[in-house]
């Protein structure tokens, strides 16, 4: 997305003033981490972080957060008690049950959307799709709003796939997700062996000098985008330690499980510990049109323990207080069990779980009827959820984004935060 020339977005202003206040030319050369260490620490302490667990394909609410045992739609599983008094969830999540005092449930979600792509869009942008325009995704939005402008860290990282350049929309390339495909760090993070650190610094200084001279008298929006990507790259190289996933102990690996999702949760923990603003972990694939129950035994069997371990580890490290955790997907699954023992797409009565920063652990909002076919109390949609996420991390969702002087609502207007699950 092209940035408007001479655009005075809030980010540009704050970023410039920050740099003027705290650093010099060296700062813009990408050694901000050193120059602003103190300032960065200060920001980091206050900084809110977010982790989304994206259960791709659509997890069944009946086999997770809103079970309906002993009804026509219930399926074979029972409920279990949890660490939150009075809150019962499906027996497929025994480890998560022990963390429910950290988590709140929203059981009245009705997004009225049964299409994978459109559902995913609503859940990650807070808006229905409109032709010809892309709203920024939650990760890019929070990267732009929460990540300190001079942070050496990328604001939005996708672990285990997903993540497209389109997600940033008008927020620009700085907020495009960095995808760690197959759990690998980005390529080319290490300086080439034939080049010394001083040599690298020298050549980047000349590069900058040539580029600055070129920009004189020319439109600069695009040269700025280009130059800032060199700063970003340098920053990333300076903090490649956050991608070093080789140092986990055997005990930790065992705790999370050796399968890819277990490892990705462990990586997410490290990213949160390193201060990354927004991390999205994707677990595929819950699209259980047939054999729904066997499917969920297997998938949730993989999800439950590493997820619960993640929540508990984040809490133990004192990070949960400022880290918002969201478990979501594009839609739920049909209460009615189809002929192939499957459940199909169902956007009209399903659940989302969240916890941590700003969220009241153990709270439950919304209610579905006895066999789960519709919401009977406190119905909410993607807009309500977005208002809630923004409030949870201390941001005002009613203050719009501005793009080309036009306001764009951060979350569907006319919806409100789900106050009863916020602290």
């Amino acid at each position, binding site marked *: 997305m092209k940035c408007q020339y001479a655009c005075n977005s809030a980010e540009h202003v704050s970023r410039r003033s920050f740099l003027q206040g705290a650093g010099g030319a060296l700062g813009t050369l990408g050694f901000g981490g050193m120059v602003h260490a103190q300032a960065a620490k200060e920001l980091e302490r206050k900084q809110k972080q977010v982790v989304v667990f994206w259960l791709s394909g659509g997890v069944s609410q009946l086999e997770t957060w809103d079970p309906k045992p002993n009804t026509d739609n219930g399926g074979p599983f029972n409920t279990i008690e949890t660490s939150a008094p009075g809150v019962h969830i499906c027996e497929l999540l025994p480890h998560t049950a022990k963390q429910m005092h950290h988590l709140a449930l929203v059981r009245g979600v009705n997004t009225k959307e049964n299409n994978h792509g459109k559902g995913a869009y609503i859940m990650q942008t807070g808006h229905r799709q409109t032709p010809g325009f892309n709203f920024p995704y939650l990760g890019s939005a929070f990267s732009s709003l929460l990540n300190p402008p001079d942070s050496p860290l990328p604001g939005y990282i996708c672990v285990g796939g997903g993540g497209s350049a389109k997600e940033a929309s008008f927020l620009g390339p700085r907020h495009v997700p960095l995808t760690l495909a197959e759990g690998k760090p980005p390529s080319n993070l*290490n300086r080439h062996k034939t080049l010394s650190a001083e040599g690298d610094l020298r050549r980047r200084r000349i590069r900058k000098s040539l580029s600055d001279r070129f920009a004189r008298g020319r439109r600069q929006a695009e040269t700025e985008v*280009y130059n800032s990507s060199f700063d970003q790259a340098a920053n990333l190289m300076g903090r490649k330690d956050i991608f070093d996933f080789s140092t986990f102990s055997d005990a930790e690996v065992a705790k999370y499980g050796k399968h890819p999702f277990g490892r990705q949760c462990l990586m997410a923990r490290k990213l949160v510990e390193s201060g990354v603003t927004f991390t999205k972990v994707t677990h595929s694939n819950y699209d259980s049109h047939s054999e729904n129950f066997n499917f969920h035994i297997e998938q949730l069997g993989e999800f439950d323990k590493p997820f619960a371990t993640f929540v508990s580890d984040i809490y133990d490290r004192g990070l949960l207080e400022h880290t918002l955790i969201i478990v979501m997907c594009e839609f739920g699954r049909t209460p009615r069990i189809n002929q192939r023992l499957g459940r199909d797409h169902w956007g009209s009565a399903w659940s989302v779980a969240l916890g941590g920063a700003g969220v009241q652990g153990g709270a439950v909002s919304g209610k579905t009827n006895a066999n789960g076919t519709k919401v009977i109390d406190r119905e909410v949609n993607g807009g309500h959820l977005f208002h809630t996420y923004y409030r949870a991390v201390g941001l005002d969702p009613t203050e719009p984004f501005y793009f080309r002087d036009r306001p764009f609502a951060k979350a569907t207007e006319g919806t409100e935060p789900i106050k009863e699950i916020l602290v």
Partner: protein
Amino acid sequence: MGRRISHLLPRFAWSACWAIALLLASGFATEAADVSLHQQIDLHIVAKTPEFDKIAAPLAADDEFLRRVSLDLTGTIPTREQARQFLEGADPDKRQKLIEQLLASPEYARHMQQTFDVILMRRLAAKNVSAAEWQTFLQKSFAENKPYNQLVAEILSADGTDPTNRGPARFYLDRNGETNAITQDIARVFLGRNLECAQCHDHPEVDDYLQSHYYGISAFLVRSYNFKDPKLKKVVFAEKAVGEVKFKSVFVESKKDNTTPPRVIDGKPFPDPEIKKADLYVVKPAKNVRPVPKYSRRGLIDEAIGSAENRRFARTAANRFWAILMGRGLVHPIDFDHSANPPSHPELLDLLTDEFIAHKFDVKWLLRELTLSNTYQRSSRREPAAIAATTDVPESAFAQAIMKPLSPTQMAAAVLQATGEADVQRKTLGDKLTEAALHQRLNRLSNIIIKLFADPASELPGDFDSRVNQVLFLSNDPTSAGLVNQRAGNLVDRAAKLSADNSAAVADELFLSAFSRRPTEEETKEVEQFLTGLTDKKRIEALQELTWAFITSAEFRFNH
């Protein structure tokens, strides 16, 4: 074929008259002068914006023009020698001669092939027609300067059944013959309309984009499908004699489907003739048989789209060529040509359209006229003082050249030329040097760079994006490190062999090779300081660092 000045006068307000006066003063006879298109372009651009001369950037210097026109017409930067020769040349017509030379070069056909490959195929994977067949078709077409409407007609009438000429069928066959995919791209590329939304409903924000327009185009194609020919053992395009488009808006509750005969936007409809059921086919459909209908709807589409009567086709093409060279369409974005998004210079777009039709869709002629214009040859730079005085000149005034990020193919070619990798390969080829042989030799490296910069894919400049993985590649990948290693005849090697006492010559070598220009004093001094006191290995390292800084600088990344 020009127009008489007197034809122009009524179109202009008085503000244009001084420009015309200037033109006349500069040696044009009043009465009999034919004003060529490039001069008319400038008149239109000047007339549109009040006090244009005060806000306009000056004409580009020779070096700026050389780099720009080389990238635009041949997809690469000139060699150091070409740059030196051009800059030293004293011929007052040297710009015009350069344009002719570039248009006649094999690099021109290659560059146009690469450009139109992306426009027409959006980097879709080659599946049913090989990339080589397709590229050869495009390259040959541009080399022989095939009229643009003929090129498009060949694509739209191809079915892949001629085994010696399957290239043009790739447009249909590698979209899997899928009616919606084809409809959308025909509308986008040939009619200047992004009709994607109109598949399901009238466009919610664009009044002129109707669902019936979408299905009018679909109706030409709805009976066609990909068919694996058992004899050819290849996928070809087949067509049935029956089948109608059906549509209803998802916004409107209606049980009844609508339909439409084939029709291009609001052009004339093509109702099917009455044919007895028994006579519907020349070759009847059967198992493993490619049916041939007596009346082919698809057979009408090349004429319906590409004929001169369909002005929209010529207009979209003229606007696209303009955008390719000027960095922005007169209608912008180029696929949103509708009444609520009028062109910045409506009369100029009409003129380009008329003239492109009158010149029988002669692509080289159009590119020549565009590049000869002052509008194209304006600098991308204005004096800082001039900018302060006129802060808000929109890009659409075309008062200052718009910087265009290098396309992935331009980036690859420019990097390989600037670092001297291309020179090394030229030397190796010796007598066997041809454009094709050189292309072949550079193919592996350029594909690595193209792949890196083609993500995310985009057709035209306008959504510049620089991704961290690209920068990390340029900075640290062994491939990039290899390009700045000293090898006999490459840039680092040539610079290293210049006397260490003569840093000015080194600066000259670097600037001519990478930026196609001579350094300023300030820049020469900077290079001198960078190299001062360095010898042997240290000096080589410094030259590598400099070369890297040049090819990663903003000046290199953009066509300015």
